[in-house]
């Protein structure tokens, strides 16, 4: 199955700009561990009331790298992602043990304001969720609510939309409702909206799962463009997508509890994407990658 990466080079409806799409070597020259991680997760355990959802995860996210988290449903990858900007706080009964650090600061420390965390670590959701406002107001919303000092909101909106490769498609209808856009455009709008608040890290929770292949490839291209300015962490169900876009991949799986049958997610293997897809150490990773399981 070493061929999977090669076969995944087949671009789905996108220009085969492989030099751009596939970042210099995409992993082979990457150091084995991220040298200066932007974020680290140490011995992370997540509980929902009594239910142990995620067991002892350790990860490090390199600066300007794209890290993918893959695994079968219920393996805790989305839960881990949502712990990275404290969106999990919003789930009733959620409890986190262990450490999540952002530039060596524990984001779960008592003095840390989750609102401030989310201003640095933005998030794009599974289903495009534009606000019921105009395209312009969707972008301007983040800077307005966070009280960002903006010289010209018009410029910021344009810049954000350009960064999200959406400007040319919407520049004539900025005052129109965001609901008039297609699903793929809405998702790029959500990315633009996140960029507008100038975050450091962008979390993406299965951002393409509700999109068609063409829209998906646009988002993937966009991720490659954004990597020079942002650190991206993406959860995906789509193994080919992880192989195409990411530098490093974390493979999670779920282990059922012997007595209750509740499935606890755990990290199986975390390595450079090339290693995970071509030469995984753990047999469970290999089974998943080759499609024998999950």
């Amino acid at each position: 199955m070493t061929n999977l990466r090669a076969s995944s080079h087949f671009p789905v409806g996108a220009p085969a700009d492989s030099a751009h799409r596939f970042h210099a070597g995409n992993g082979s020259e990457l150091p084995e561990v991220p040298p200066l991680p932007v974020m680290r997760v140490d011995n992370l355990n997540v509980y929902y009331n009594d239910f142990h959802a995620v067991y002892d995860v350790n990860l490090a996210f390199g600066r300007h790298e794209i890290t993918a988290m893959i695994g079968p449903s219920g393996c805790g990858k989305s839960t881990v992602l949502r712990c990275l900007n404290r969106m999990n706080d919003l789930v009733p009964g959620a409890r986190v043990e262990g450490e999540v650090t952002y530039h060596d600061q524990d984001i779960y420390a008592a003095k840390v304001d989750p609102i401030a965390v989310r201003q640095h670590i933005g998030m794009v959701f599974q289903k495009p969720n534009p606000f019921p406002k105009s395209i312009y107001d969707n972008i301007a919303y983040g800077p307005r609510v966070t009280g960002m000092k903006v010289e010209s909101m018009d410029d910021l909106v344009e810049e954000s939309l350009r960064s999200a490769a959406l400007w040319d498609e919407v520049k004539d209808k900025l005052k129109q409702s965001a609901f008039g856009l297609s699903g793929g455009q809405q998702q790029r709008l959500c990315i633009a909206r996140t960029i507008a608040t100038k975050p450091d890290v962008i979390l993406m929770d299965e951002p393409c799962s509700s999109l068609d292949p063409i829209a998906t490839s646009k988002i993937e291209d966009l991720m490659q463009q954004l990597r020079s300015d942002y650190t991206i962490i993406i959860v995906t169900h789509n193994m080919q997508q992880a192989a195409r876009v990411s530098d490093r991949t974390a493979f999670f799986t779920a282990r059922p509890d012997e007595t209750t049958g509740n499935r606890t997610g755990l990290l199986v293997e975390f390595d450079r994407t090339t290693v995970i897809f071509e030469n995984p150490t753990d047999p469970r990773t290999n089974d998943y990658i080759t499609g024998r399981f999950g």
Partner: protein
Amino acid sequence: MNITATTAANVTASTLATGKRKDRNTSSLIFMGALWFSMFFGVAVLAALILDTALSGAGRFDSQLLFDYESTVRKEETGFRAGILGTIWLMLATALLAIPVGIATAVHLEEFADRTAWYSKVIEVNLQNLAAVPSIIYGMLAAAIMGLLGFTYKGIVLGGAIALGLLILPVIIIATREALRAVPQDIRQGSLALGATTWQTTWRQTLPSAIPGIATGTILGLSRAVGEAAPLLMLGVATVRFDPTSVLDKVTALPLQIYSLASAPQEALQEAASAAIILLLALIIGMNAVAIFIRNKFQRSW
């Protein structure tokens, strides 16, 4: 091969054309008849009632009905001016009291309160029950409040508004909560993920999206209050013969005036009361129509 195919086709054709319809058998028809009768009964009684009232009030659909004061001397010209104006005053004051409190309560319960806490559950159960409390109880409560506030005569606009406001508060709260719940969680999460506070998210995203639902619920609540007489009777609201000019003025309301005239011995007054009943009905239907219009016009599919 050919023969088999033909035979199979014939078999299918003969079994399908049974000439009967299984959902038109006897028991289905009896049940259907029962459903029709029930529906017809309810509608027919209501229609007969309205028609009878309209016919007995037919002679009094004139401008004096709207613009003249009540008069037992010139019975044929008696009007409901005081009641109509009183009802308008009462509705405005009720809306001012009940809408802000009701919306604020609902926002707190939906967006801020810890739903697992025992006091939230107590409030929850109480709200459901309050909506079913007989309206006269609210009249007693308002009388007590007015007493505490030091008013000796309680049949004023403020007293009526307190009673009616308490009466429709549960309706507004429940409708607002429904409207807030209908706003997808995605919108709240999208806003929070951009670094907005819960307060900003509620104020700038959730509440504006919920306004059509809130407006609909509020109008339906007010249209219930328009027809209420019992809580006002409890407050001692009597028929008066002047226009209220402040919330501390004595007041009467359309349903109360109808109540007093319908039980009068003079036929002319009863006729006027019938006409006023139709007027009140039209008012309530109008308010409900506005509510339905708002709901349909601003309904959003997410």
